[in-house]
């Protein structure tokens, strides 16, 4: 079996190498049959990679400990679902997942766009180049098919990974990371083929949106996973590995907005090329961060020999992208100019600059230890206050712009029209702000601003729907006429919910901790927590110790919670098992952590957090996906419009 896996990977490498070389020659010399052959090789590489993936999955399912990867990541007692999920639980497997998704995406993109001959001819070698790097790594640097004499049992899986989110969070993130390769390949293909009109954007709009959605949902699931599993009461720690996923998402967000300006006004062509290259390079940079161990992270992916390879590949991608954009600059001149600083396109530009500035400050923070070590010989790092400062500095204006942008006219807006458009949203925002100050929420200025701006944005979105419905007759018809626009509004509403949830749960949370003996109680934000007893039970692969806590408010029983710890004998590790009460009154949580348990004396050191509005963060995820689906949904009207505009070639958007 391992031989089959290795052979399949070598075949994948051979196929993508052929697609790279033959595809480049075919595109250069305009040889159609050779180009088709290169496309077929890229398609075939998906199937050979799928065979390799099948071999690894089969070994994990059969607990074949002669595979080093299997023996190091699972044990006999580990439930089957987690054993299969161990595919992406380790370095070699996750690289194979990357190649599998990339070859699948590449095959689909080539298949859907085979009508756009000149563009796709150059897209194939770019995709093959990226796939070739990963195939090479898997064949010669980090193989998942290494073997050794099989031990009696494997090392098992880290307890914190034994969570249902392990099944969804990493693959979704990878679908996002890898998905950014497609718009990058089309952008580079457009430059190489000198087809720098909007066709590459149209061809990749849904790809970008899908990758961006996967990356966003993947991060949100990861945040929820950390929240319910890690047991520290937070959901985002500004850790370099978390930032690694946020940075390409921010760059892709900027790109999704600025391509609208290019489509509508023929502007920002260079900027869009830079953004798509930035998003792609940051996705590779994230992979480098997680595998090189060059920066300290709680996720610690340890020192490995992969860092240098990834750094080299990033350098090639950056030089290639910048060089190509520079060479094609004369073709990337804007058709029109920004006519006014008060216009829809100007607000999109402000939005882009804020997003990119935020992205780059995060990048600066992540690489700061490396830079200071290289320049000053002393490693220095920045932490939460640094990131929070820039989140407030750039995030709050971004939130405000979400409410302003959609209401401002294209080209040039008059002050009278602006006054008319903003009267109601501004009034709602102002009343909300004053009411919040009166209610005592002024203790946190960023929180107060976030709530006020959120009210303004929600009012402006609602107003757009009301005005549109009046004109269209029904919401369904309104959305059907312009799915992209109204899907975008729904995503904006989701971001507002997210902002409200983050502001509420961070700026207005209450934390208390206390050592308790059975019968003793503590209070937190109006709740009384009474420690009743300690119990223990045997689970499938762990010993579960749980405290019973009675939660009451105003003398009335609310619920009973069971925070505790799991002890995993095979893995020789302990994990915190938090217990959460979702309070429907304030959409928040009562979050209990059994920080320390002494079974001998039954003493419990309990940490309690009350986090108002935190559930809006998770609710935002559903609205985010719904809005993205609306925006991505096939639109016959749009297809006809695009077909008219680009009558020369078919476009699979």
């Amino acid at each position, binding site marked *: 079996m391992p031989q089959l896996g290795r052979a399949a990977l070598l075949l994948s490498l051979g196929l993508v190498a052929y697609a790279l070389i033959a595809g480049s020659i075919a595109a250069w010399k305009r040889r159609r049959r050779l180009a088709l052959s290169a496309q077929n090789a890229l398609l075939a590489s998906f199937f050979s990679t799928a065979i390799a993936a099948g071999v690894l999955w089969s070994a994990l399912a059969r607990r074949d400990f002669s595979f*080093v990867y299997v023996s190091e990541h699972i044990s006999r007692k580990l439930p089957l679902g987690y054993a299969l999920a161990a595919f992406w*639980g380790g370095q070699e497997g996750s690289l194979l997942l990357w190649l599998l998704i990339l070859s699948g995406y590449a095959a689909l993109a080539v298949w859907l766009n085979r009508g756009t001959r000149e563009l796709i001819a150059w897209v194939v070698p770019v995709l093959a180049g990226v796939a070739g790097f990963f195939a090479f790594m898997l064949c010669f640097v980090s193989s998942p098919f290494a073997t050794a004499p099989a031990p009696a049992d494997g090392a098992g*899986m880290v307890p914190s990974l034994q969570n249902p989110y392990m099944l969804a969070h990493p693959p979704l993130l990878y679908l996002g990371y890898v998905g950014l390769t497609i718009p990058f390949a089309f952008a580079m293909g457009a430059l190489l083929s000198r087809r720098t009109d909007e066709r590459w954007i149209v061809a990749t709009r849904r790809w970008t949106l899908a990758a961006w959605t996967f990356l966003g949902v993947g991060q949100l699931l990861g945040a929820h996973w950390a929240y319910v599993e890690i047991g520290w009461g937070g959901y985002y720690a500004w850790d370099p590995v978390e930032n690694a996923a946020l940075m390409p998402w921010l760059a892709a967000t900027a790109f999704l907005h600025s391509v609208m300006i290019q489509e509508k006004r023929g502007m920002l062509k260079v900027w869009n090329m830079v953004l798509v290259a930035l998003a792609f390079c940051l996705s590779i940079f994230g992979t480098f961060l997680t595998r090189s161990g060059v920066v300290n992270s709680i*996720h610690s992916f340890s020192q490995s020999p992969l860092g240098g390879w990834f750094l080299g590949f990033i350098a090639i991608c950056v030089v290639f992208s910048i060089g190509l954009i520079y060479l094609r600059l004369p073709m990337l001149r804007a058709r029109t100019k*920004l006519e006014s600083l008060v216009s829809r396109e100007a607000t999109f530009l402000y939005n882009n600059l804020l997003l990119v500035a935020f992205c780059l400050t995060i990048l600066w923070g992540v690489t700061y230890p490396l830079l200071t070590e290289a320049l000053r010989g002393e490693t*220095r790092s920045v932490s939460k206050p640094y990131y929070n400062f820039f989140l407030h*500095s750039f995030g709050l204006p971004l939130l405000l712009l979400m409410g302003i942008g959609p209401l401002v006219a294209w080209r040039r807006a008059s002050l009278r029209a602006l006054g008319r458009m903003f009267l109601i949203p501004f009034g709602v925002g102002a009343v909300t702000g004053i009411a919040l100050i009166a209610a005592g929420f002024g203790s946190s200025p960023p929180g107060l601003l976030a709530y006020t701006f959120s009210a303004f944005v929600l009012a402006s979105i609602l107003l757009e729907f009301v005005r549109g419905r009046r004109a269209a007759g029904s919401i369904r018809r309104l959305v059907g006429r312009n799915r992209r626009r109204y899907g975008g509004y729904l995503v904006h509403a989701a971001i507002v919910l997210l902002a409200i949830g983050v502001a509420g749960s961070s700026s207005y949370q209450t934390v208390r901790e206390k050592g308790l003996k059975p019968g003793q109680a503590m209070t937190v934000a109006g709740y009384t927590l009474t420690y009743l007893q300690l119990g223990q039970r045997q689970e499938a692969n762990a010993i579960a110790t749980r405290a019973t806590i009675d939660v009451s408010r105003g003398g009335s029983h609310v619920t009973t919670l069971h925070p505790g710890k799991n002890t995993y004998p095979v893995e020789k590790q302990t*994990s915190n098992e938090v217990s959460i009460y979702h309070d429907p009154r304030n959409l928040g949580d009562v979050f209990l952590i059994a920080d320390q348990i002494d079974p001998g004396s039954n003493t419990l050191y309990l940490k309690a957090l009350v986090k108002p509005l935190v559930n809006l963060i998770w609710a935002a995820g559903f609205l985010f996906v719904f809005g993205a689906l609306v925006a991505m949904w096939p639109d016959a009207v749009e297809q006809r419009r695009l077909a008219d505009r680009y009558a020369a070639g078919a476009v699979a958007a």
Partner: protein
Amino acid sequence: MRRSPARLVIALSVAAALAVFVLYTSIAGAGTPQIQPKDLAQHTGVVLLVGKVVSTGGDSHSPGGMHFVLRDVKNDSGKRARVVYHGTVPDPYRVGREVVVTGTLRNGVFVAQDGSLTTKCPSKYAPAKSKT
């Protein structure tokens, strides 16, 4: 020919972003030094201490706190850092694990800030031990 205001917007935005950045660094300083036990004696202010746990004892929630000893992660110099810590102890914490803790050196003991201890998750993407 009249120039596009886009250039002005970009220039002003870059200037504004730089101003915000300078403001931050002037107020908050330029990061916290991240050191190993071998360099601890040379730093008097707040530092991030990175090390491997050699021995541990005590209760992090008791007045006396938890005491542990750290060694260098890379190229062990033989120097050890004695740490006293109060607050939450992460699940993966134990002897042999790599930890990061924020604090200050006082009278030869590194006094950690409450709740600042983080432990690296040891398994993910660690290099394989033996291969054929």
